[in-house]
């Protein structure tokens, strides 16, 4: 097994060595993915949540308007995204088994299946049987972030709710794999803990899963917590240059995995990330429940930085001689 490198050094890379790391990563990306970038968009089905996670806009005690989409509203969201020319969607809910039951999610998957050939889920952790049922309903993949692998920080950040159970969340990707689901996306929320220690654990988790479930297509995401202000957590923040070096490192360590960049990153950064090894970006995203059909942008799970519509992103990619991939069953 290849060893996982030490990441503390990334912060002190010279611009020249960072540049050469990124160049190498981009060559690896081209080798395995060519000059293509896949596009996807999230659909937020509901924002009810039973967890108190200190960093999240859907925190159970947050005073936002709570909502879950009904059948007609789900259809409208799907239609709006379909009209924008996207075919790969990520269905999300807040983590509330009461308000967004597995049956409700399953029904949403069935509706989305009428529009899109590729559907992934990002919801609370399910059982193997429930995941198998979602697979039957038509999902291709599951996104499940550990948020942080630092157990002490995890306990400090997840104050109440089912998500406090670190171990159950950690074993979730294996339940997904056991249910026969082929695509699993992992990640940590950068900024919750020292990313220099967190990321090697994420990489080790991925190595473990690759070995145990070799048929699964894995991908990684590197979401950044925005606006880290408190003095005691300032050290956890990660700069653009550091994050690009991290993406490049992941690309070189895992040449064939997908690397996703969400619209929580700004346009300028995303345009750089696709030259550091990213393979998949969200486009024209709304993180608001019902946001595509109603056009609202407040009260989302996180603020969208790259507000360019999907068509603009396709044009940008073509200008950079990259083919935007809309249809891909992975």
């Amino acid at each position: 097994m290849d060893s996982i490198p030490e990441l503390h050094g990334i912060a002190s890379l010279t611009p020249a060595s960072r540049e050469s790391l990124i160049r190498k990563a981009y060559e690896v990306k081209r080798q395995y993915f060519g000059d293509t970038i896949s596009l996807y968009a999230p659909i937020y089905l509901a924002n009810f949540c039973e967890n108190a996670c200190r960093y999240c806009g859907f925190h159970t005690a947050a005073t936002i308007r709570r909502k879950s989409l009904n059948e007609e509203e789900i259809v409208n969201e799907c239609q709006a995204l379909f009209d924008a020319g996207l075919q790969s969607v990520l269905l999300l809910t807040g983590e509330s088994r009461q308000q967004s039951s597995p049956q409700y999610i399953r029904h949403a998957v069935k509706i989305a299946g009428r529009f899109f050939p590729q559907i992934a889920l990002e919801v609370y952790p399910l059982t193997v049987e429930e995941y198998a049922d979602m697979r039957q309903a038509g999902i291709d993949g599951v996104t499940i972030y550990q948020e942080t692998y630092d157990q002490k920080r995890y306990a400090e950040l997840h104050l109440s709710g089912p998500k406090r159970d670190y171990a159950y969340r950690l074993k979730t990707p294996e339940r997904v794999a056991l249910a026969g689901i082929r695509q699993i996306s992992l990640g940590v929320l950068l900024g919750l803990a020292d990313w220099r220690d967190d990321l090697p654990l994420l990489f080790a988790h991925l190595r473990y899963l690759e070995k145990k479930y070799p048929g699964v297509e894995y991908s990684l995401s590197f979401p950044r917590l925005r606006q880290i202000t408190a003095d005691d957590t300032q050290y956890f923040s990660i700069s653009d240059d550091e994050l690009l070096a991290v993406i490049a490192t992941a690309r070189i360590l895992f040449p064939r995995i997908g690397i996703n960049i969400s619209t929580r990153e700004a346009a300028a950064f995303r345009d750089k990330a696709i030259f550091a090894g990213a393979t998949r970006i969200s486009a024209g995203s709304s993180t608001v429940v019902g946001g595509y059909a109603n056009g609202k942008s407040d009260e989302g799970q996180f603020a969208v930085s790259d507000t360019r519509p999907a068509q603009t992103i396709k044009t940008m990619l073509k200008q950079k001689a990259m083919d935007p991939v809309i249809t891909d069953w992975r």
Partner: protein
Amino acid sequence: MENRINDEFIIGGRSFHSRFLLGTGKFGNKQVMREAIIASQTEIVTVALRRIDTQKNPENIVSFIPDGVVLMVNTSGAHNAKEAIRIAKIAREAGYGDWVKIEVINDAKYLLPDNEETLKATEALANDGFIVLPYFHPDLYFARSLVAAGAAAIMPLGSLIGSNQGLKMEMIITVIVEEITEVPIIVDAGIGSATDAARAMEIGADAVLANTAVAIAENPVMMARSLALAVSAGRMGFLAKGGRTSMMRAQASSPLDGLLNG
């Protein structure tokens, strides 16, 4: 130039001039892909069904494939025989013909094909009237099984897919070329340069399929032409029996041939 009339390349009862097949993945620009297909004079291209836009919009990859070129759908994305069979049937129903490259991969790290599942899919689809070209990990016994299952041609990998590492499996492919004469042998995966393509033909492969080497070249159109010319050059070298070709092939014409076959 090569005497094409005497050197037909036949798959599934159909005759081709070109022995170079091109994959359509990884291109940064579909128009460039089209030009590469034209420049290489390839007559067979392979497209992943999962990359074909069922909405048939103008950006659909299929609309960039020149008329007259055989479109061979591949089952990329299939993890087992059942899924490969399903993909082939969807493709046929959608009007993409009955040529299918079987690609069954259940290892996301190395993307190596699953031979057992490939065999099952080959057998089922050949029985269902498809022209089946299975992509497989080279092994002589297995190659025989594919032929028995009804493969129209067999496609051993030269090295890891997308790696541009060349003909790492040369020794085993040489054995397969020597032993399997019932169907064409097309070296697929790993061909990274004109040298690799020519070498595959010199050891007696019937054709070469490439993709990554062309798609990510700085000049994909020129690279497509380069590989196509190398395939022709290698073929001519093989036919001319010049220089060192296959060790085993070199021994094949023995004085007893006429007596045993006569």
